[in-house]
Every structure is written in structure tokens, then in C-alpha cells.
């Protein structure tokens, strides 16, 4: 086991929060870190997407008909096959959130049911 020393008020805040949810402090920290990672990767994907959409049309044109992989505001790979691109990206970047998008237009999905509307 590794020890991390936390000073007050953070240590007592963590103890209070954990107690109020009936969790061990470790469990609370684990949940909080997971939530933080989940939100961070979403923000990263939003930022990568905004960067790509703001890129000059002539720069995007070189990837016409392909899928692009965008990481840290750069096109790091591209391919006509989304599956092939996805495999390479996963092999190279592990579980890092890397945007994979069609080079033109936004990805669209259709749901032929009414279940989209919240009741």
C-alpha cells in the first residue's frame, strides 16, 4: 500500500464526504477520480472537435472521403477505413481519448423509435 499524506481541510472534507455517503475514503477518491477522468476526456474530445471544425477548408480537403484521428489539436492519422484507423489509434495511444471523425460533416445516427424523447 502506498501512502499519500493530505493536509487539512482537504483530509477532513474527504472524511466527511465519505461518511455522508457511507463510503470508505478510498472508495470516494476512486469514484471522484473516475468521474474526473470521464469529464476530462469529454472536454478533450469537445476541444479536438472544435479545433477540427475551425480548421481551414483547404487543410481539411486533403482528407476528403477519409476518417481523421485528432489528438492535441493535430491530425495524427487518417484512413478510408474507420476500423483500421481505430485499431491503429488504440494500439498507439492506449486508452487516451482521441477524436475519430469523418473528415466531412458530422456523424449521424437514426433511431427509429420514439424512445429518444424523455418522458
Amino acid at each position, binding site marked *: 500500500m502506498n501512502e499519500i499524506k493530505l493536509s487539512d481541510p482537504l483530509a477532513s472534507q474527504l472524511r466527511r464526504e465519505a461518511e455522508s455517503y457511507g463510503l470508505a475514503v478510498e472508495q470516494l477518491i476512486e469514484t471522484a477520480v*473516475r468521474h474526473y477522468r470521464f469529464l476530462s476526456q469529454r472536454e478533450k*474530445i469537445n476541444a479536438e472537435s472544435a479545433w477540427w471544425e475551425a480548421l481551414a477548408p483547404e487543410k481539411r480537403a486533403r482528407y476528403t472521403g477519409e476518417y481523421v484521428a485528432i489528438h492535441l489539436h493535430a491530425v495524427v492519422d487518417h484512413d478510408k477505413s474507420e476500423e483500421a484507423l481505430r485499431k491503429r489509434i488504440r494500439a498507439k495511444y492506449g486508452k487516451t*481519448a482521441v477524436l475519430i471523425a469523418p473528415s466531412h460533416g458530422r*456523424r449521424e445516427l437514426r*433511431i427509429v*423509435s420514439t424512445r*429518444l424523447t424523455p418522458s
Partner: protein
Amino acid sequence: MSIPYDTRFSPPAPILYIRLASPGDVPQGESLAGITDTGSDGTLVPIRLLEAVEAIDVGEATLYGVLGETRNVHLYEVDIHIGDLTLPNVIVVGDEHGDEIVIGRNILNGLILLLDGQRRLTDLLERRPNLRRP
């Protein structure tokens, strides 16, 4: 193995039990019921379940419903386990509003399913059955 239709829906709906995992990981959680929906391009999973397995965010999409409603969503990469079958690196929609799993054609098109509506049972088959025509 036959899976009974879910009678919480009216009429009862064919479902499959799936387990989610972050790509390459062993599934940790319990089996979850997902309604099979051949009318859905993609598979929808409540966002809390994706967070729990640390699914990887891979992009954005617009979701169109049959009544014309649209919703901006994030897409996540997960491994999906159905019985002994593992479907690696599947892209699913993170559903921020709903609380049910909808298994769409991106998964269904890789399976052989027998929907026995009369007996209200679903079977996941390993091979296509020899059905005699009447």
C-alpha cells in the same frame, strides 16, 4: 440459452444480456438487459454505466429520432460481452437522459438471433438453423 422477452414492455420485447468493459479489460459488473432494436443505427448505453467501466470517449454525433427530435451525443468505445461472445471495440452512444440499454444494428448485424415471438423467447445462435419451409 433462451432469454425470455422483457414483459416490462408492452408488448413484451426481445432482450439480450450484455456486460460492458473498457477495451481490453475483463468485465467487472453484472449482466445488463438491453432491448434489441433493429430500427436503431447504433447502440445506446446510459452514461453512468459507461463512466463506471471507464469507456473511452471517441467522438460526437447527432442522433435523429423518428419524430424529428435531434440530440447531440458523445460516442464511446467499449468491449461488449454477450454470453461467451466478446465484441471488441464497439462504438456506443452515451445516453444522458434514458436509463435503458438499446442494442442497435451496429451490434445486431454481427449476431444470429432467433426471435420466437410466439413463445416470447430470444436465442443467440452460433450458426444459422436449417428451417424447413411449410
